């Protein structure tokens, strides 16, 4: 067992042991490090796969999901601690490796940290692990005292024998507890008895983020390590034709100039700056392949064709929408669009790799350790059992680090320097032009309304990219990408449509291009929520109805959707006038198992300058594990979603992405961030996600407020390309 995967090394001084382990692990490459780690750990038996208690009472809680800033570490610990009855101040966490999990028949389940699943998909088995460990500790104490377990109780890492008052600490019991037979079944606490879940515990990993001590993947150091800077063909699908290594081989620090796969070149040097300097000077000729003629305009033309194509995959239908619209006395149509966007996490893609002909170890920030292991093994040309992935906290993920093209490249580079640790770090420019992008789509909305302004038929035609067709083609259903319809589904606990419309057709004309799409915080909700929620607003205004009242008429069958919408309307004061010059917009959606709504207040000055003053957000995520963490995720969702709305756009010219850094791919800054008021309103009985849902209502709430302010209906993101001066 490796115990040095802990990348949160020093929460308080009592964690010194874990910290030392980390440093040792990271300063010795490959197997040597693992051997060192193994000796550190062998002295501490685990109680179960998730819980290790050391003789000094330190409670080690193991993590399969990854921490990327979303607070999963703290939430997972709260769920285990709730059942374990341990001393919160003595908890440390460590990452298990996917290799360890593989060797133990996936003892830690799914490593995927995406789709806002980290907490909700783990909650049952991690709580059971905590309860199981508690029972084993109590049984060990009872055996020691020759007492009845029922007479013993555990609290704050101490077991007490109630009749006699005798006590034993978890650290004293751990070895005996590890030898206990796990109980066949455990009963989890009733939610009304929770004392840890539902509380705003401070994060476990904040301290080292305030001192520069936290080690990210890009910070890793190993003896003898070399640094690689790489460049791929800027046109997706293109290849390396040739490169003139001799031109840079004698530059300072340069050790190797290599090709990685068929599409990339890399310079390996003593330092990253030397590698990058030489790479910038390296003459490379590319075979751009068949996509050199693709541009944003050709892609837009393809999407426009799809808006009226006869063939489309159906996502949600009832009645006869086309006939109802045709027969309606009032018809409304509008076409919307959503661009490619880069995830742009603050830490660019990186991985450190030690490859030998028999073994490959990598150290990297990843949202999915198991997928990273598979990618490593494939690139290394080795079985997964001869590889492992040592995880490090991420400097942002947002979906980009659920896929491992960058890791594959790093392994292919390191493979050419056997036995030497090689860290490949992408420049921001490389990160921008070799992204996996938010899918590009357009949408034509067509509605029919009766003479009283009631919606009688709605057709929503989405045209554009499918993420699954690129990422998981085997997940397509006879060619249909079900994920395209996030937030629009007729049924289900994940992302159900919140309106009942007598005649409805939501369909998708799949139009793919060579720019690789991917899951991007909020995923297909981002555009779907704009399309449906802005068009709801359009229909209300076109028929002289209040946008909230118009929605409510359609939401009678959707009480949870309606409850969050009502909550934000009440808090923002929807039925009272807004401050002078300030205008409001609302939106709601269900996604990732949670119900969210937002109400925004904006003003637009005579020059067309937008100010977002205030946003009220409501979230019903069923169970709220840590309300403060939820507030942080809601604020973060607005920051990310408003960046997308205001600035987010990657354009394509000559087959390549044009925007190369934050000067051309701007993002929201502090001065533009509105005040956010978060209403956490868990209704119980289900576990919804938190990291992503709120992002989907950020843009439509603001766009609807902009219409209220200006009379201008913006139907294409981002706003930087739009004139907001009053119509």
């Amino acid at each position: 067992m490796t115990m040095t995967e802990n990348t949160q090394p020093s929460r308080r001084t009592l964690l010194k042991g874990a910290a030392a382990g980390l440093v040792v692990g990271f300063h010795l490459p490959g197997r040597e490090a693992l051997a060192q780690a193994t000796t550190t750990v062998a002295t501490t038996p685990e109680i179960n796969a998730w819980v290790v208690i050391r003789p000094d009472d330190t409670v080690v809680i193991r993590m399969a999901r990854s921490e990327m800033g979303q607070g999963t570490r703290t939430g997972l610990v709260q769920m285990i601690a709730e059942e374990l009855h341990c001393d919160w101040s003595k908890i440390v966490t460590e990452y298990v490796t996917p290799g360890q999990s593989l060797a133990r028949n996936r003892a830690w389940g799914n490593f995927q940290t995406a789709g806002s699943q980290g907490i909700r998909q783990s909650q049952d088995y991690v709580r059971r692990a905590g309860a199981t460990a508690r029972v084993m500790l109590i049984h060990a104490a009872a055996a020691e005292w020759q007492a009845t377990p029922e007479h013993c109780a555990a609290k704050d890492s101490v077991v007490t024998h109630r009749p006699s008052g005798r006590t034993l600490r978890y650290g004293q019991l751990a070895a005996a507890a590890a030898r206990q037979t796990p109980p066949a079944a455990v009963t989890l606490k009733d939610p009304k008895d929770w004392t840890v879940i539902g509380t705003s515990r401070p994060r476990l990993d904040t301290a080292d983020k305030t001192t520069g001590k936290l080690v990210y993947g890009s910070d890793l150091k190993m003896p003898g390590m070399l640094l690689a800077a790489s460049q791929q063909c800027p046109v997706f699908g293109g290849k390396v034709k040739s490169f003139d290594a001799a031109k840079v081989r004698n530059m300072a620090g340069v050790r190797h100039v290599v090709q990685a796969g068929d599409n990339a070149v890399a310079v390996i040097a003593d330092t990253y700056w030397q590698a990058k300097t030489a790479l910038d000077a390296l003459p490379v000729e590319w075979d751009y392949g068949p996509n050199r003629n693709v541009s944003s305009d050709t892609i837009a033309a393809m999407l426009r064709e799809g808006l009226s194509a006869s063939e489309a995959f159906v996502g949600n239908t009832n009645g006869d929408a086309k006939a109802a619209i045709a027969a309606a006395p009032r018809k409304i149509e509008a076409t919307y669009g959503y661009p490619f966007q880069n995830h742009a996490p603050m830490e660019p893609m990186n991985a450190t790799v030690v490859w030998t002909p028999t073994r490959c170890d990598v150290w990297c920030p990843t949202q999915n350790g198991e997928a990273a292991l598979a990618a490593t093994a494939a690139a290394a040309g080795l079985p997964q059992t001869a590889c492992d992935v040592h995880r490090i906290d991420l400097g942002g993920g947002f979906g980009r680090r659920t896929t491992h093209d960058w890791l594959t490249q790093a392994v292919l580079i390191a493979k050419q320097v056997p036995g030497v640790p090689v860290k490949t770090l992408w420049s921001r420019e490389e990160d921008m032009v070799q992204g996996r992008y938010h899918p590009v789509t357009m949408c034509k909305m067509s509605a029919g309304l009766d003479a009283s302004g009631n919606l009688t038929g709605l057709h929503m035609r989405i045209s554009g990219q499918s993420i699954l067709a690129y990422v998981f083609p085997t997940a397509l259903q006879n060619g249909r990408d079900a994920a395209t319809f996030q937030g629009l589904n007729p049924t289900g606990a994940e992302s159900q449509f919140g309106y009942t419309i007598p005649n409805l057709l939501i369909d998708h004309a799949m139009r793919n291009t060579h720019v690789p799409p991917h899951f991007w915080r909020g995923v297909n909700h981002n555009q779907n929520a704009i399309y449906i929620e802005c068009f709801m607003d359009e229909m209300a205004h076109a028929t002289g109805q209040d946008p909230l009242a118009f929605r409510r008429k359609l939401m009678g069958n959707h009480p949870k959707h309606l409850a969050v919408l009502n909550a934000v309307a009440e808090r923002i004061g929807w039925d009272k006038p807004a401050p002078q010059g300030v205008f409001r917009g609302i939106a709601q959606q269900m996604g990732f198992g949670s119900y969210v709504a937002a109400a925004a207040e904006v003003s637009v000055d005579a020059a067309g300058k937008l100010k977002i003053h205030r946003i009220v957000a409501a979230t019903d995520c069923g169970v709220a594990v840590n309300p403060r963490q939820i507030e942080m995720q809601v604020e973060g969702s607005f920051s990310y979603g408003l960046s997308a709305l205001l600035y987010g756009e990657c354009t394509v010219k000559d087959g390549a992405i044009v925007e190369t850094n934050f000067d051309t791919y701007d993002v929201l800054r502090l001065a533009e961030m509105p005040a956010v008021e978060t209403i956490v309103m868990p209704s119980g009985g289900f576990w919804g996600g938190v990291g992503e849902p709120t992002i989907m209502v950020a843009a439509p709430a603001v766009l609807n407020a902009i219409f209220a302010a200006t009379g201008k209906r913006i139907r294409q993101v981002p706003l930087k390309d739009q004139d907001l001066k009053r119509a």
Partner: protein
Amino acid sequence: MVRLNVNGRMVEVAASPDTPLLWALREQIGLTGTKYGCGIAQCGACTVHVDGQPVRACSMPISAFTSNQKIITIEGLSPDGMHPVQVAWRELDVPQCGYCQSGMIMAAAALLAEKRNPTDAEIDAAMTNICRCGTYNRVRAGIKQAAQTRQG
């Protein structure tokens, strides 16, 4: 060889004079708390203090510095992590992924050194660092709390 005064220590850096300060700090001096985010002085993840002023280290070559200029990195901001900004950051749980926070904290500390009680407009103007997780409102609250602590 370039001589730099970093965190109160004289260090000799064996790097080409055109090496950005960021990479000398990270790769030659071993101070990795200062982060690479963009390389073009846009994001501020590499913010350090030079004679008390916030500087984006990715865009300044080491040849631009003399050994008389005092360079302070996140590691040297306080001996024990108890600078009022660091304390406020922990109390409010400001960081999310944390990658941008060294730069945020250095920018905030420089602002507070210049203005004891900055207004919202002054915070807006000074804090142009990029955070993708969305900590901005807590950064603002953290600066205000640190300002209060200093005056208390």
